[in-house]
């Protein structure tokens, strides 16, 4: 169980994440929604141990992660928002490096990496440098790298960005299966439709604060809206979207 208590991150005086609380149980896929700059990636970076919180605590299985951050990181699989990856390594070399850094045995790394590369249709390109990969190919490498060591927790920040439809469908199914075996999954995204289909629960964050934390069904019922898109729009987008679009159009056309 991953538990977040009063988690806060300030950049200067500006709170990017402001006293956030939530819990993700084993086997649960939680969607993390919010507009740009809402604090989604900052929360995920704190959960991954890459960013230290200004205030608040993170617990995994009732233990503060900062008591033994290194062993906590060993249980994590993390897909960052930006596909930042060493471009001078080939896809296979990168996976080999990550597997070794995770302490996996050589034959396990090779077997798993090759199989996953094959399944993700990257086998033929695995010896090319990442610098020559497309965005989607880099994203696939990041996903494989996050799954290679069979992590207990999966922190996914816009994982489907740049992926083709077939891969998206496969990956969603993989996530369901992983949740089925008790993984803790936090899924951050802008794509509401995917979150609606995939997640058991949705957390909506805006300006660093949590606005809603419930199942999609309950949220729809409570706000009396037919879709998650409208629930989201109702909670987050106070402005008249049509009016903004109109003004934008006028600015573009001149």
């Amino acid at each position, binding site marked *: 169980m991953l538990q977040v208590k009063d988690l806060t991150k300030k950049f200067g005086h500006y709170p990017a994440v402001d006293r956030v609380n939530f819990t993700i149980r084993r086997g649960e896929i939680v969607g993390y929604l919010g507009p740009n700059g809402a604090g989604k990636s900052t929360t995920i970076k704190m959960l991954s141990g*890459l960013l230290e919180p200004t205030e608040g605590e993170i617990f995994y299985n009732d233990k503060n992660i900062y008591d033994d951050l290194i062993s906590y990181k060993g249980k994590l699989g993390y897909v960052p928002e930006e596909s930042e990856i060493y471009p001078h390594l080939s896809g296979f070399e990168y996976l080999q490096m990550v597997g070794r850094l995770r302490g996996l045995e050589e034959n396990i790394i090779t077997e798993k990496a090759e199989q996953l590369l094959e399944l993700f249709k990257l086998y033929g390109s695995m010896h090319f*440098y990442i610098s020559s990969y497309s965005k989607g190919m880099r994203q696939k490498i990041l996903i494989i790298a996050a799954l290679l060591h069979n992590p207990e927790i999966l922190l996914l920040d816009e994982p489907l960005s740049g992926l083709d439809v077939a891969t998206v469908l496969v990956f969603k199914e993989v996530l369901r299966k992983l949740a089925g075996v008790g993984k803790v999954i936090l899924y951050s995204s802008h794509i509401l439709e995917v979150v609606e289909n995939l997640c058991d629960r949705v957390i909506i964050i805006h300006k660093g604060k949590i606005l809603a934390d419930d199942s999609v069904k309950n949220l729809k019922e409570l706000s009396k809206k037919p879709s998650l898109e409208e629930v989201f729009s109702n909670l987050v987008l106070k402005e008249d979207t049509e009016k903004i679009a109109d003004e934008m159009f006028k600015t573009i056309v001149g």
Partner: protein
Amino acid sequence: MKKRMGKIIKKIKILVNLFFLRFFRNENMPFENEAEAKFIFILVLFSVLSLFFSFNLLFKYVFVPENGNSWQEKSQIILIFMLVIGFITVLEWDVLLPDKSDFYVLGPLPLGKGIILSSKFISFLSFVGLFAFTTNFLSALFFPVFLTAFYSHSSPFFFILFSIVHLIISFLANIFTFFFFLFISNFLFILLPSKFFKKVSSMVRGMVMIAILSIYAFLPELYSFLPEMVNRGDKRIFYFPHLWFTGFYENLLGRSNSLTVKMSRLSILSVIVVLFLSFITYGIAFYKNTRSVSKSREGSSFAKKHPSYSISRIFHNLLFKSQPEKAIFYFLKKTLKRSEKHRVKLYSFLAVSIGIIISKYLTEQNLLKNVSNFKEWSKVIYSAPFIIWFFYMAGLRSIANNPYNPSANWIFKITEKKDKAIYHRAIHKFNILQNIIPISLLLFLFYLFVWDIKKSLIITFFSFFAAFFIEEILFFNIKKIPYTCISLPDKGNLKMLFIPYLLLFLFYTQAMGYFSYWIVEYPHYFKNLLYIGILLLLFLFIIKRIFEKREFSLVFEEEPEPEFLSLEL
């Protein structure tokens, strides 16, 4: 038409500005303002150095009259500035051709290839031109001040003419050098498949830099025989390009004879030829690059089914205690192999060491007189490997602070291990296996050429130990994974410790030179040294065991030094 030209010029201006700024604002220089300040500092330094050189060369004319022999000083200053411009051109020549980021950023914009080509070229020319101007400007004042009186027309008008001639000649010599190296770079690019160019280019750059530094070190020797050759009318003087421009210089100042006329013609012709060749080759290279950059797909040649795969696996199991250690080792190996910026910087350290060795050698003996006694040439041969090791290891340590791609470092942060000895072991193994052992083998081959196998083995073994200890000292307290950490460009403590470091270096090379002379000439003492070496190794082993237990976090971004250390002391 006029409107269209205006638009093109405007675009070129913007791009020139963009490319020019990239000389200081790149991933090597994360602190932009400091990088620009540093650049200005270097320019000022160059102008002061040119003043210093001019003054040193010409001061004798305060006491001794010039009898038509000042061409030597003129040619020396021309040569020095040609070397400076050559060095800078070679150091930065890869910026001339658009890279992948240019392709992605500028590709979709409505910019013709000609606009990008011209902008790249103008920005590089301006960059080198700034150096040319700062180095030549002050000397253009100094030379007339000291020498006008010795010419038949010493009027104020002649003073101005002298300055202008000096500037023109220096610029012509610089233009010749710049375009000559440009031609070499482009020619290589056209000749080689794009895939190999980067590898070959960095090697060629390293060698050219070594050659340039060697010519600089060779200056006193050159001028011990050159005047005699000129007086004799030896035809070999035409092999020295800086003399062509010196001849033109004298010609323009009115000291004409058949030799200066010939030299003048040769200098003009050489500039025209290199201009023509470099423009033609630049155009071809640019179009080849545009094609290859968009299509290129580089990859590692080491596939799984490679026959040596199983052998390397056995080797891995013997060599590495853990998987993370192996990961770091291979990350370092591949980064140094594939990152040109790291390799070129390392080669420049190596170039300095070779320059020092040649300079030391030339001060000891006259190469041209003793060239036949090659096998007995100098005592420098004893200290040479230690100079190389000092600079090479310092270079390795220095490039360890240059991050390859800081934004991708998160993978090391997220997989950080408690046992930090893993990182140290990987770094030491990389330094020894990938650097010390291969270079030691090369040194051994060189010594085999000079001495017999016994002597060669002794000095190689001794220098290997020295390299090993330098490596241990320089990387002993490292708290970062090389090529990952963003480091501050100027560490205050290095400035403070510069003089002790220099003294230490001088002491080290002298002492090691004597030591190696002693053990090579009296090999029976070698075993004594071996015992000392083993004792030192034991001591080092114990110290390392103690320090290995320390706990620390890996550093990925250096904290600024305390204020007092950053003072300009």
